[in-house]
């Protein structure tokens, strides 16, 4: 009763191919955009904008990238951190080598460089699959971090190995990086980039290339026999995925933390993003956002819950509990709902079609 498609008649294929075919979904999306673009910047505190929304948006973007590669194309990757680092350090080199370059070009240029690196490390995927590919991408993760750490050129020979984003502006005089930038400006810029790229991701996965990726994931031999070129399709997934991760890395270094060292993108980051898509839902755009929200918000909730409930638990105990609850949840999702929160959401919608009537 509450959620229904009854009475929605699609008379053209164009309408049937729309992203949201049900008016309710369209209106909810408009509502979410209104909250994200208008309400949150107006009422959000420093803490909410800076410590929750920024990392949430940026990691959701990285999760989106990984979901294209792993969830849609079926290529398990543990190199997300490495590709994010590539984006961060490419953005730094671009911004310091060409000081006049516009921030938008810097961020997307960094994404393109990360895409090229992704293609390079995606080549073994033609021969190796599954866990073995995961090991190969893990090697790329360690190699990339080692490279940025080892060669001073990437950090412009800074003694600490840390890169700091130079102050950059958009629309002439609005600072979005550096110490003078306001959190609202940073938030709005990040949000715009993430919304734009999420739209691109959605378009890709509902087009021919998205069907080719899913075909390769579901049955690669049949895909090859109906004419899908295996290597090219996989490399496209690596390129798009690394582009997203690269942009996420650049945003992380330039807008979220401001300065960053290679270790911020170590293998733990790769696992964090992988857990996001497992919990959020493999092969779902929405899943990337749900998973990122879950993994960012859960530790905050777990930290504050004992105080809110009036329990007196030691902080080290809380942080240990965090690990335990996290581990348990991941095992739970892998066993009970491998399609994650996104699947739970669509099940809920199916229930709401009938509720409160039995059938």
């Amino acid at each position, binding site marked *: 009763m509450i959620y229904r498609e009854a009475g929605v008649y699609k008379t053209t*294929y164009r309408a049937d*191919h729309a992203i949201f075919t049900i008016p309710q979904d369209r209106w909810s999306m408009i509502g979410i955009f209104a909250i994200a673009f208008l309400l949150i910047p107006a009422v959000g505190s420093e803490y909410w904008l800076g410590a929750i929304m920024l990392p949430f948006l940026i990691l959701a973007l990285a999760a989106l990238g990984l979901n294209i590669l792993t969830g849609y194309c079926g290529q398990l990757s543990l190199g997300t951190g490495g590709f994010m680092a590539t984006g961060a350090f490419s953005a730094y080199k671009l911004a310091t080598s060409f000081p006049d370059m516009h921030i938008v070009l810097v961020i997307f240029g960094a994404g393109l460089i990360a895409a090229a690196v992704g293609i390079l490390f995606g080549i073994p995927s033609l021969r190796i699959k599954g866990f073995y590919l995961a090991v190969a991408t893990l090697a790329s993760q360690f190699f990339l971090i080692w490279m940025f750490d080892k060669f001073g050129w990437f950090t412009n020979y800074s003694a600490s190995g840390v890169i700091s984003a130079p102050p950059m502006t958009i629309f002439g005089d609005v600072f979005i990086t550096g110490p003078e930038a306001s959190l609202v400006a940073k938030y709005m810029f990040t949000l715009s980039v993430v919304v734009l790229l999420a739209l*691109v991701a959605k378009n890709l996965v509902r*087009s021919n290339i998205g069907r080719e990726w*899913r075909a390769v994931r579901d049955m690669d*031999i*049949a895909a090859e026999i109906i*004419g899908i070129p295996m290597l090219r399709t996989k490399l496209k997934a690596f390129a798009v995925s690394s582009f997203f991760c690269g942009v996420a890395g650049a945003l992380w270094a330039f807008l979220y933390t401001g300065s960053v060292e290679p270790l911020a993108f170590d293998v733990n980051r790769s696992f964090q993003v992988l857990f996001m898509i497992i919990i959020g839902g493999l092969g779902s755009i929405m899943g990337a956002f749900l998973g990122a929200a879950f993994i960012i918000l859960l530790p905050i909730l777990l930290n504050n819950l004992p105080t809110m409930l009036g329990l007196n638990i030691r902080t080290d105990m809380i942080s240990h509990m965090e690990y335990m609850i996290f581990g348990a949840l991941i095992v739970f999702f892998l066993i009970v709902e491998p399609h994650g929160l996104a699947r739970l959401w669509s099940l809920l919608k199916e229930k709401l079609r009938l509720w409160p009537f039995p059938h």
Partner: protein
Amino acid sequence: MDMNERKIGDVILALDNISLSFGAMKVLDDISFDVRQGEIRSIIGPNGAGKSSMLNVINGFYHPQEGSITFRGEKRKEMDVHKAAASGIARTFQNIALFKGMSTLDNIMTGRNLKMKCNIFQQGWYWGKAQKEEIEHRQKVEEIIDFLEIQNIRKTPVGRLPYGFQKRVELGRALAAEPDILLLDEPMAGMNVEEKEDMSRFILDINDEFGTTIILIEHDMGVVMDLSDRVVVLDYGLQLADGPPDEVRSNQTVIDAYLGVSH
């Protein structure tokens, strides 16, 4: 069926002295036959005779050690999987090879991948060229969905469909490529009489309406003898017979292979 009305043309595909072995195992031994434009050509034989291997040679999935394949007048030692698909050879599989996580519609749309020309940037932007292309192909796919009478399952994930429907969707995916030659590997295995009749009707209609050449592997002799123009018989990789159904049916070597013979 009226044989006189159908047009059977020149040889479109010729296989000459094909031998294929995996290590010491000889799967195909000196097989030669040809396929004419517009005919229904069956390959029969007991289990393990090399029938599926023959199809795999035709669409380039296996590369024979000896012999040659002449397709549309072009002679080559072996086919290439991608080129075979691009030059109009489509197939279905003995064990259904659908993309389980995708809907019926998406599975059949995937069959048109070679005809979709928009690049990744146009698809990423979607509006404009990519949308137009998507809708054009959707129309073609809907024609196939109508033809196979699977309108009510177009949005259902194929993993949830019953076996008979999965076979139909797989046929739809192959048809979506608008092939010149359609390779069908046991399209009626595991079906009941009614489903077999439906499938036979689809095969005849495809051949008749679209003029598609069909190479068919099937174990139901009644179906094979009724549908086929010519039948080639394999056993243990050897070619036992080749000819019209009546001739093959009365061939003593074929009868011996199927029924067994005392030595």
